[in-house]
């Protein structure tokens, strides 16, 4: 009987651990640059298979944190562990990472650069051509890196991170400086890789990007973690929507009698409403049309991160 209980506890603890498979755990990580504390006693845990967003304005310590996790920046205090053991180079071979800008030898071709990375990671290198193809660089793979456009450089960097099927992908502002087409291409790659079960750590200052791709998020400001948790809980799903109609008083009345509108403001002869759940513009349009209101303006208002932070801080 006693033995059975012990065995039960033992097997279940095992089960519990397997369930909560921690890929990265950070404890009290701190980095100072002179008087400025770039990362301030940061604690984080990232589970296997999650898409983890690190959200914060420029200068909030995102890149410094990732730099420490990749041994490019020396922490002043605190520690972290990858895959449950202390950091060393063999773990970095299981991670694909972009830090700030694509870093390649300008005089080497795209293919030669990937061959070099393959050899550092001790990979057979048989997936290089496939990676170049996926990045849309198959026809330019024998051109030198310095002749690439910004978008091509960025895509090569993403291709490099995917070599050898890494267990963790670290992306620091991967869509920085890209045009809308480039942004959506990178986003598609992230979502595809995430669906294959790869853990992704994504640093970004764009709220929308984190909201659209991440399952979990930590919000940083001045090196401190303000919030963390599942995206659905932490980032509220509210949206600000601008709308106006020829019959404004009728619109006003309708708005006040709906259950999804949380807040109504008037500005420049239009209404700005805040919804308590995500609604699509076409649904909204139909909703008002059915009630005999023809809208002449309907748009989602992008929320700035700073404004959003204020809201978060007020809430806490």
């Amino acid at each position, binding site marked *: 009987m006693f033995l059975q209980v012990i065995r039960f506890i033992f097997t279940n603890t095992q089960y519990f651990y397997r369930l909560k498979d921690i890929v990265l755990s950070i404890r009290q990580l701190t980095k100072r640059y002179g008087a400025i504390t770039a990362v301030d006693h940061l604690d984080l845990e990232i589970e296997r298979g999650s898409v983890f967003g690190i959200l914060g304005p420029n200068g909030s310590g995102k890149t410094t944190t990732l*730099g420490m996790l*990749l*041994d*490019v*920046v*020396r922490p002043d205090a605190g520690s972290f562990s990858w895959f449950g053991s202390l950091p*060393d*180079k*063999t773990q*970095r*071979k299981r991670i694909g*990472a972009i*830090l700030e*800008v694509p*870093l*390649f*030898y*300008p*005089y*080497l*071709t795209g293919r*030669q650069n990937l*061959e*070099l*990375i393959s*050899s*550092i*990671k*001790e990979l057979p290198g048989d997936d290089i051509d496939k990676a170049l193809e996926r990045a849309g660089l198959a026809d330019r793979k024998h051109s030198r890196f310095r002749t690439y456009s910004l978008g091509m450089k960025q895509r090569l960097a993403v291709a490099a991170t995917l070599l050898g099927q890494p267990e963790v992908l670290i992306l620091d502002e991967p869509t920085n400086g890209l045009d809308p087409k480039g942004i959506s291409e990178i986003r598609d790659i992230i979502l595809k890789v995430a669906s294959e079960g790869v853990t992704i750590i994504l640093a970004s200052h764009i709220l929308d990007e984190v909201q659209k791709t991440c399952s979990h998020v930590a919000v940083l400001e001045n090196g401190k973690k303000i919030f963390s948790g599942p995206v659905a809980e932490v980032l509220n799903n509210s949206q600000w929507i601008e709308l106006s109609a020829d019959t404004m008083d009728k619109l006003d009345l309708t708005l006040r009698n709906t259950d999804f509108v949380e807040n109504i403001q008037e500005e420049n002869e239009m209404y700005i409403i805040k919804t308590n759940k995500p609604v699509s513009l076409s649904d909204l349009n139909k909703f008002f049309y059915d009630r005999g209101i023809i809208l002449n303006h309907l748009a989602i208002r992008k929320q700035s991160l700073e404004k959003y932070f204020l809201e978060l801080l007020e809430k806490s």
Partner: protein
Amino acid sequence: MMKLIQLELRKIIPYRMFWIMTAIYLLSLLFFFYGLPSLIDYFSLKTNVSEVKLLKNFIYTFPDIWQNLTWAASLRFFIKIFLGIIMVILVTNEYSFLTIRSNIINGLSRTDFLLSKVYLAVMFSLAATFLVFITVLALGLSYSPTLTWHAFSSKMIFLTGYFTEILAYLLFAMMVSILLKRTGIAIGLLFVYPIVELIIQQKIPSGMEPYLPVNAINHILRTPNTSLIEYKSPEFTIDLQTGLHIQDFAVALLYAALFIGVSLWVIRRRDI
């Protein structure tokens, strides 16, 4: 080790700048060694001093040719400067392209990174030594009137001195590059520091001069005491060298170890 060497080869073989610099080094070395006999001939015609014509035979005959040419090739302000510049370019490139970051992010340790540059210095030293070996062989065989095995091999040991001097010098260039990170500044220091050291050596107590770093790594091969100088002026008072000294090797190698040590310490401590 082979992996790191392979990695370095991947970086330098497609690099055009590397081959241009290598060509400049090669040409300057060969020009000097092959051109000098003609230069001597030219001067002997001009001056009609019989000793000048003899010079050629003294410099280019076995066994003294080993000592003379290895000494000339390792002079501090001479041909080996090009090797130093190649080393500086290859190391500082990693900083200016920030590829040292990508190397480490992708799974090199900081120590690995440094080791790969140390291996590079060893490879260059071996290649330079081999080049001098081939050149001496070709020139010595054509200028030595008679050849015995003893005459051929008795001073061949000077090649080890040459190898050690070049290796220590390249490790010095490596350390300077890692400390300064910028190509231009590092090359500048490579030129300026040996001059600064000439000034320093005036200020320190005599007997200490050979222990200054650049002096130390140039002290294995000193002004050769070949038969020419004996012939011309037996009462010459400068520091002439007849053989190699193990303590010179020891000092140079200690400095080489120090250069590696300082580089390693800096690279492990600093943000990249």
